[in-house]
């Protein structure tokens, strides 16, 4: 293992985070606060509790997931796309580092950033609503796995994209709808039966369900299933990354 190289990439990426602190941390905090004011305060006050949890508190895990997914993807995809775009990738490619080390550096930094963000959102949320965490270790596990998985997914997009539109297309066109339809703001069993079954094809449902279970002990699907699906998606992303580096796809001519 080339640890100095992993460290160099990781620090470089984190330095980028601190440079763009406002954009990376402050704006998600503001948008989350707005969600709580609108959904938690204005609308939530007219909603009945879901499974004994107030609506405002109910949406906290979903909101954290929403940020976790979009931020992990945005950070990781930009992190690898940008050096490709400006050409500084030459140095990464010519360095004595393996694919796995490159991935640990970039994906690790992106995941770190979105986990920090998730924690900040959690802290912000607890200012607005009473948040309870029944299974803190499971919560940490889901936080970690989701951040890693979607940072990896973002990394793949950052390699696949050959322009800025494509870079933003997948998050915008696929992830945001999947997250909204994945039960961030409602429980799946509030849907008509047909749509409940459709929802089970949405991978985000499993993430949010498992994550919410770690908070309130209530879930749409069994927590083991949630964990399993998360691991399956993680494995898919790892396989794709391995293939990319094996073939040099879009990295080497």
């Amino acid at each position, binding site marked *: 293992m080339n640890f100095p190289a992993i460290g160099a990439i990781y620090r470089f990426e984190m330095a980028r985070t601190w440079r763009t602190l406002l954009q990376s941390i402050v704006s998600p905090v503001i948008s989350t606060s707005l969600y709580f004011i609108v959904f938690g305060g204005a609308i939530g006050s007219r909603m009945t509790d879901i499974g004994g949890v107030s609506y405002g508190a109910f949406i906290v895990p979903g909101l954290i997931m929403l940020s976790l997914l979009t931020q992990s993807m945005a950070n990781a995809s930009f992190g690898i796309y940008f050096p490709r775009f400006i050409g500084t990738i030459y140095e990464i490619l010519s360095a004595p580092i393996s694919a796995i080390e490159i991935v640990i550096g970039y994906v690790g930094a992106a995941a770190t950033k979105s986990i920090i963000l998730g924690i900040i959102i959690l802290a912000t949320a607890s200012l607005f609503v009473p948040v309870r965490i029944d299974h803190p270790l499971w919560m940490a596990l889901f936080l970690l796995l989701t951040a890693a998985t979607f940072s990896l997914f973002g990394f793949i997009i950052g390699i696949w994209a050959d322009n800025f539109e494509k870079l933003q297309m997948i998050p915008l066109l696929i992830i945001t709808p999947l997250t909204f339809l994945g039960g961030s703001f409602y429980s799946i069993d509030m849907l008509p039966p047909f749509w409940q079954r459709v929802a089970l094809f949405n991978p985000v449902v499993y993430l949010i369900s498992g994550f919410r279970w770690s908070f309130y002990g209530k879930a749409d699907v069994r927590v083991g299933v949630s964990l399993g699906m998360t691991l399956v998606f993680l494995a898919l992303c790892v396989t794709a990354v391995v293939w990319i580096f094996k073939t040099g796809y879009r990295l*080497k001519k």
Partner: protein
Amino acid sequence: MFHTIPPPGAVASASIVSVSNLSKTYASGFKALNCINLDIRRGEIFALLGPNGAGKTTLISIICGIVNASEGTVLADGHDIVRDYRAARSKIGLVPQELTTDAFETVWATASFSRGLFGRRANPAHIERVLRDVSLWDRRDSKIMTLSGGMKRRVMIAKALAHEPMILFLDEPTAGVDVELRRDMWRVVRALRDTGVTIILTTHYIDEAEELADRIGVIDKGELVLVEEKTELMHKLGNKQLTLTLQDPLDCIPSGLAGYELELSPGGRQLTYSYDKTSEETGIGPLLQALQAAGIAVKDVQTKTRSLEEIFIDIVRARS
């Protein structure tokens, strides 16, 4: 100045980079390199000359791991660049042709980053030495985007040297830089060579190769046309031309000048004399006397080194 320690136990074979039967066909189907065989000697400065599109950058990019070869192998200090890429790449530093740097990082941070990337432990003393050598020490805390183009090029050199490579590739290091920076680069390159670093550079400028190189390779249309000691090649390619603009046009070259290799321009107003500038006797003096004796008045004289382009044409012609 620069300090490189030979790796323990390394058998110092004469060639430090060994390219065998290397070919590259890009995805577009274009064959950029055709069966290149080349050995770079330990400690030499090797200049790779060739017109635009000859395949210089492709060759360097393959050796450095940026482009995949289609066929053939490359050994760097005895390590296969694919199978044993870690060992091979840690020996190599690259300054690519394009100026590509980060913008927001400082000079110091970017050089330290490069060192780490190549697996070396932090060594502020070495980074300081490198930055001083490329005259960037005063700007170490400046963000790269605030630097001039010439300074950015120095930054790229500093990055390439940060991990103490024993082989340095410089892809057109002086293309588009001013005279002063060019001299500076040359000084840096020589100083590096004096510490035992092997340097492979590509260039358009024959005088650069003349100034620096121990050996010269010429690449054209993806093929290595020749590899020769500089002194040998300079002798062969040392032709210069003297152009004389005449007061009155001539119909033909007077018989009194038949002994000289002269060419008359179509309008009869210019005489061109080719000579070997490296020889003791260029023949210019006698030629001018002969002209005077023949009663030919000269209005203007001009000398010109044959351009690299012309030399390439000669080489390619001689080849076919």
